[in-house]
């Protein structure tokens, strides 16, 4: 193994990311338990139905707080650029196996950006609507009609979040060399040059 390694994420970003990921697992599984009767068995991982109901909002709030810290570290590189449109046009061919990367892809490609903003928006909605029917502390402060809407918006946002996470995780498995960016903090030079050419050029200073 002689390839040069490039730092992609410092320690604090990685620890932050994995804290959010673990909390997502807890909030996601405890929430899915109430999402559909077929998934109610998931309550056994949290000490039964009532404990699952008690714990879920705390997992959720902690996850959102963790994400806010992560957001502050990475949002700038996720701002949408005109060149991202070209990436999306090429996305279908990419999935079919043509993995040449547009020359203008920076630290994050358009797909990663969309996933990032889907995370941000769905978490914001989950956070806000979750308070509206959080028993026993906050629910009584809201009228019943609002609680009805909040439950549905909460569940729809959760589906969007889970789907985005599935895309996020699969992309990391699919594109080899990606996972080490979040486990070791580094990627190979070839990985950076191939998948994120503009970011790579920026690091070398020949933007």
């Amino acid at each position, binding site marked *: *193994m002689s*390839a*040069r390694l490039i730092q992609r994420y410092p320690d604090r970003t990685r620890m932050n990311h994995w804290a959010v990921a673990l909390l997502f697992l807890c909030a996601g599984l405890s929430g899915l*338990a*109430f*999402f*559909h*009767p*077929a*998934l*109610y068995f998931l309550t056994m991982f949290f000490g039964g*139905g*009532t404990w*699952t*109901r008690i714990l879920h909002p705390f997992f959720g709030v902690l996850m959102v707080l963790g994400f806010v810290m992560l957001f502050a570290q990475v949002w700038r590189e996720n701002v949408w650029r005109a060149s991202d449109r070209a990436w999306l046009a090429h996305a279908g061919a990419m*999935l*079919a*196996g043509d*993995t040449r990367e547009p020359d203008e892809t920076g630290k994050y490609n358009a797909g990663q950006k969309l996933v990032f903003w889907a995370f941000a928006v769905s978490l914001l909605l989950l956070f806000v609507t979750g308070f509206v*029917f959080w*028993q*026993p502390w906050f*629910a009584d402060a809201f009228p*019943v*009609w609002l*609680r*009805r*809407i909040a*439950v*549905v918006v909460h*569940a*729809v946002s959760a*589906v969007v979040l*889970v*789907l985005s996470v*599935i*895309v996020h995780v*699969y992309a990391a*498995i*699919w*594109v*080899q*060399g990606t996972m080490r960016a979040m486990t070791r903090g580094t990627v*190979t*030079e*070839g*990985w950076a*040059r*191939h998948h994120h050419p503009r970011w790579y050029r920026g690091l070398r200073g020949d933007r």
Partner: protein
Amino acid sequence: MSSLQSLDIAARSATTTPSPQARTTHEVAKLIDVSSCIGCKACQVACMQWNDLRDTVGHNVGVYDNPADLTPESWTVMRFSEVEAKREPPQETTLEWLIRKDGCMHCDDPGCLKACPAPGAIVKYTNGIVDFIEENCVGCGNCVTGCPFDVPRISKKDNKAYKCTLCSDRVSVGLEPACVKACPTGAIHFGSKVDMLDYGAERVADLKERGWAKAGVYDPQGVGGTHVMYVLQHADQPTLYHGLPENPAISPWVSVWKGVAKPIGVAMMLGAAVAGFFHYTKVGPVPDPDDPDRDGDRP
């Protein structure tokens, strides 16, 4: 523990398989004749006594309603409404004191049961009674959002949901509900739903003769009919009776979500994971150009 046998359960919350259907029983109903009610609250006392409920003593808020609202320990409340309403003959507007015994309506299509995510926390028996099984209740409050009549209450002591059981324990051994037994004017009737509708029709005919031209039985079809029904002097204006809803139905926010959207949501999430797996086996991974141990087969 439910108060009736598992054989008698017609519907169960958060359950997708059929309930036992070997045995059928007739549907029961309580008929509350508002025109015969004198507002004595004997039904409230009987409910407290039979169910061993002792609500905390509250405050007089300037109306006769006491307690002021349904609570986890008060499963029925007399609602007093002073209204000006027309009687014909004699074709004049008079002051009427409408007293409605409020509580669970035991809907045939119960919104609470539909909204509940905890398997078996809410059941509907074959006789039509809707019961909360508190040992299965997780305290999420979804029953409150599911109910078109604003009936369930979550206890601050134990975070369980409570409401009128229609004395399912008494009914299961052939007794009438405690409130029915206690009513001194015979305003509360109990029997098979068919008999109650028959009796209600008699009462309505009588009221019409006496000038309440719009008298009728309140058995709202938007929730499949109810197993607690009212005889109303002004059936065309149920909202006169402390806001009794005119056309109650389960909110579409609850029914659509619990009906079609949830299976679709689960299918989408499962489908995405499965699609990823098959994509990997078809297209294969994108190799890291610098990884000598790469397992992709593209150069």
